[in-house]
């Protein structure tokens, strides 16, 4: 069985980073497209 505490920390940190970065990219992607279309 995996050691719960370390698994929780590793999973929480990595998933938050991954989801955070990807969401930021999607936001930026939409913003850039809106600005380019507005030009």
């Amino acid at each position: 069985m995996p050691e719960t505490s370390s698994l929780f920390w590793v999973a929480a940190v990595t998933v938050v980073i991954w989801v955070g970065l990807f969401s930021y990219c999607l936001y930026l992607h939409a913003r850039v497209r809106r600005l380019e279309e507005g030009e």
Partner: protein
Amino acid sequence: MTRLSNILVWILGAWLAVVCWAAFHYAPTAQGFVGESARIVFFHVPQAWVAVVAFCVNLVASIRYLRTRNPLDDARAAAAAGLGLLFSILATATGSIFAKVMWGSFWNWDPREVSIAILLLVYAAYFALRQSVADEERRGTLAAAYAVLAFVTMPFLVFVVPRIYWSLHPDTIINTSGTIKMESRMLQVLLGSVAGFTGLFAWLYSLNVRLARIALRRRQREEG
């Protein structure tokens, strides 16, 4: 083009989701580490790798700016340095989580921790320099010259210092024998993650450059 970029975005998202799944379910538990702490390698190493790539892009764009004085090259250099700083901070944060689980403290004054902290300061100073100069061309020139000097410290801090001094840091990836000491499934996940994070960097970088290009065009319209 829009349709293709949308497809690429979702391929990248799916790729990274698969890497996340594989990091916890496909890769075996590493031996010699506390609990599951070693799984952070699948995120920590790619973040450090992307930071190095970003600083290399910063160097290339800075040299191009010094030769051409094209404001877009300056914007490219700034975008790359910003992403290098971001991924260095993420690599430091994930490394600290590993250190807490493995050695009981977030910060241990290990040579590799100190060297990444110095690298963060070196590139934070790049942005302090940019903020302190109002004239655009002078700012670009000074920042580009500083970036060339800053890059000289990067290989020394990332690759040389950890090899010279004794370190708590595991030497599965960077070691004196020059080989990757890792189980094959772990290596597959690591390489997949490196590819995914490199794709994420490329996407973020291109978005930042496109934003800078829009800002430049707007300013040129306002001036002309």
